[in-house]
């Protein structure tokens, strides 16, 4: 069985698994990092979103081989800051299952677009599905994290 070297949340990891193993399996089953969720398994829902060298990827369809030599960041490794605080302030989660993926996509958006418009938020977040329908709160939380005043409707 081949071994793959990668860096997960700043720590070097050596993973012995088939190169086609989904990264999500490695994170959850091998490393015990359970923030990224299994939702659909075919990149249709976004619950498994993590960062690969800073870019959002759906870890359920990302083979371990793609992560070789790269930096993987999960919600556990995302530095605590305005984004998480905004999520709490806006009381975004209901059931919460999709929220780790939502936050990872939002973090990726804000890293590239520090003050996004509603349209930019919608474009960036459209691949993260929320069965509870928290989309408007997500949008408000992203604006809040970006430093924009928000008011509840």
């Amino acid at each position, binding site marked *: 069985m081949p071994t793959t070297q990668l860096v997960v949340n700043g720590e070097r990891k050596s993973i012995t698994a088939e190169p086609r193993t989904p990264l999500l399996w490695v994170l959850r089953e091998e490393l015990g990092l359970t923030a990224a969720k299994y939702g659909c*398994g*075919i*990149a*249709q829902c976004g619950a498994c*979103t993590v960062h690969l060298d800073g*870019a*959002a*990827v*759906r870890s359920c*369809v*990302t*083979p371990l081989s*793609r992560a070789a030599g790269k930096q993987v960041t999960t919600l556990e490794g995302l530095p605590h800051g305005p984004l998480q605080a905004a999520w709490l302030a806006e009381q975004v989660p209901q059931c919460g299952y999709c929220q780790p993926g939502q936050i990872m*996509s*939002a973090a*990726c*958006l804000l*890293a*590239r*677009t520090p003050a996004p418009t509603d349209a*930019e938020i*919608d*474009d*960036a*977040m*459209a*691949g993260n599905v929320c069965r509870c329908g928290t989309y408007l709160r997500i949008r408000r939380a992203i604006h809040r994290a970006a430093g924009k005043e928000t008011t509840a409707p």
Partner: protein
Amino acid sequence: MTRTVSMIAAALAATACRAPAHPPNPARGWRAFEDVVAVLQSPRCISCHVPGDAPLQGSDGHRHTMNVKRGADGRGTPALRCTTCHQDANNDALHAPPGAPDWRLPPPAMRMAWLGLAPTALCETLKDPARNGGRDLSALEAHLRDDAIVAWGFHPGPGREPPRLTQPELIARFVEWKDAGAPCAASNPDDH
């Protein structure tokens, strides 16, 4: 002396092989291009060669789910890049994202959009370096032959219909069209 004569004979034979057996035949070239069109406008190609900002999906050409957009570089928007979901290779699971290296649309400034074009208009678009990414006919042939995302179209993974021709058949028909003078109509207007 004998060797020199045979070298000259070989050179003449090679020259003869390179020369077209017949003068360019626009009607035959056009028939070849119609086969090329059938591939270029198949779902596997046309889904990304679109005029709008959203790629298409499926054999019915529906808009890509999740509001996926072309983005500034043809590779998606921040946090929703093509490679957020599309990998370097197909996923075996039905309805999972297909994959090939450098999955992308044409960039917004060079859309290479063929959706809805009649064959003559598609032909003119395809040949125009201002609208085809600065390619001459040989570069277009190289794109068809060597670009991994083109090759993917002929092996699109489970649940996706490949084009009518195989990739070698497409290239053969393209070359036939090119060698016939790359006509954009069934007959050369200059003949009339």
